[in-house]
């Protein structure tokens, strides 16, 4: 199943033994995976009651917060890795959250639907908004309020003084490093703040 492989690809970006903050952690699956297979610890942030409950059920430490309110709860660089997976497209204050991610974590990892994926382009060329596995909503009821592309994020990262450590596309559970903006339905970026010395 590609979602599972996506999860493993993302987990592979997280160093062993990291303290992790997972923004929009959903039902806690990734945190549980990171704890079990990579010796990581940390917290998930989640707003939905049902997901908070699932996290508690599986023993994942979860903190119920609205990410739109920022990350005032967390000190600068208090986590090794801050994950923001499949989340930024739902946020109104996307750019602020990106800055917060870079502030709280030594490393940030972000993933989001890549609107420039060829299938999406094709749909728009035909005159319709795409409805795909990655973007499964009709335009009038989508929770995705920020549609961007792999290439767009490179610009936003530069604008915010972030140093991209790694970036690639994800599609059907495979990491794509050639022409990700065209070939991948999901964009993945690993970055750190440009104004701090690289961590070992």
């Amino acid at each position: 199943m590609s979602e599972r492989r996506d999860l493993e690809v993302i987990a592979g970006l997280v160093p062993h033994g990291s303290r992790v903050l997972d923004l929009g952690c959903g039902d806690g699956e990734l945190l549980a995976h990171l704890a079990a297979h990579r010796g990581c610890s940390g917290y998930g942030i989640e707003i939905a009651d049902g997901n908070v409950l699932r996290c508690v059920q599986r023993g994942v430490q979860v903190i119920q917060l609205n990410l739109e309110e920022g990350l005032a709860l967390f000190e600068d660089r208090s986590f090794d890795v801050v994950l923001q997976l499949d989340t930024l497209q739902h946020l109104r204050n996307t750019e602020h959250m990106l800055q917060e991610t870079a502030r709280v974590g030594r490393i940030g990892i972000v993933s989001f639907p890549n609107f420039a994926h060829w299938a999406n382009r094709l749909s728009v060329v035909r005159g319709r908004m795409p409805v795909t596995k990655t973007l499964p909503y009709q335009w009038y009821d989508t929770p995705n309020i920020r549609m961007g592309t792999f290439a767009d994020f490179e610009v936003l990262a530069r604008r915010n003084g972030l140093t991209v450590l790694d970036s690639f596309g994800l599609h059907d559970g495979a990491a794509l490093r050639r022409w990700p903006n065209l070939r991948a339905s999901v964009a993945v970026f690993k970055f750190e703040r440009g104004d701090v010395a690289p961590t070992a």
Partner: protein
Amino acid sequence: MGSIGVVQPQSRRFEQPLPLRSGAALRDYTLVYETYGTLNANASNAVLVCHALNAGAHVAGVHAGNENSEGWWDNLVGPGKPLDTERFFVIGVNNPGSCFGSTGPMHVNPANGKPYGADFPVVTVEDWVDAQARLIDAMGIRQLAAVIGGSLGGMQAMAWTLRHPQRVRHCIAVAAAPNLSAQNIAFNEVARRAIITDPDFHGGHYYAHGVVPARGLRVARMIGHITYLSDDSMAAKFGRGLRNGSLGYSTHEIEFQIESYLRYQGDKFSEYFDANTYLLITRALDYFDPALAHGGDLAAAFAPAKDNRFLVISFTTDWRFAPERSREIVKALVDNRIAVSYAEIDAPHGHDAFLLDDARYHGVLRSYFERVALEASAGHSKGGGDAPEMQSPVQP
């Protein structure tokens, strides 16, 4: 999922004085307590339930001969309930200074053979926790699986991890706060003044006069009650409803439904609650402030709790112990890299929500206790590492 049924209060006398924070000591005192469920062979499944202002040891079940004597947290504690008495040994204990059986202001002061009255020593949350620790010592329990409480009870649950961190594994603090705000202390002070200025108060020695300051207690309870409900729930329950359907143009009579409700609550309360206890317990609330000894640094205060695990729960419409206050607790724990989960329950009932059985709220408690139970049945004890099946996958 049913009631635990008929339960029997028990009591234990402690002859060794309890040293208090004030420097005084409580001499020769008795604690009333109740237990539900069975303590397992390695005494690893005990859960202590701490009470708030207006409750005691009677947490669940009913007392013999009185079907209406349901315990104050009966919707949470019982067979098959979120705090399942088929898996846990649950302890409710009435704190000293209270008026539900344990030694309090209306009991005899061994120093002079008269009721304590106003001479009952000022007790703090920390003093209560120390008294509770002595009780579990006497029960042969070295370490509690969990301690849980709401409001003032949540403060006690936290104080356990600060004073006796090795003697408890999990702390569940519901609708709590790291200290009272000035506004909260102000409400308490108005309530206290209502009692103290009642002509029947007699400086706290009203027992000798054969009276109780019922008027003061009524007003104190009315004020308290307003702060336990949300504006929305009051509007939904009473609105501007009139008791007699039309205005009576009276300043003395009950006109609005909310007045009728508050007077009823006040009357009921004044019949069973002791005025000196009200003063003592509101003071304990005012004084609780673990950060004070650390220059206001709550994170420093929580440093001893590094091996404890926390569940913090707040309610969106609780303005007496607002979610922001619970987030302060969560932040202090996160700063210490302590394990914590936090649920902010969207409930309309204000502070009172912690006593109600909202499905989301009880769902989180049930799930959390299920994990605590797995750990307890594996004979987990702190220091030896997590039992495999309880390995909390994400342990900060």
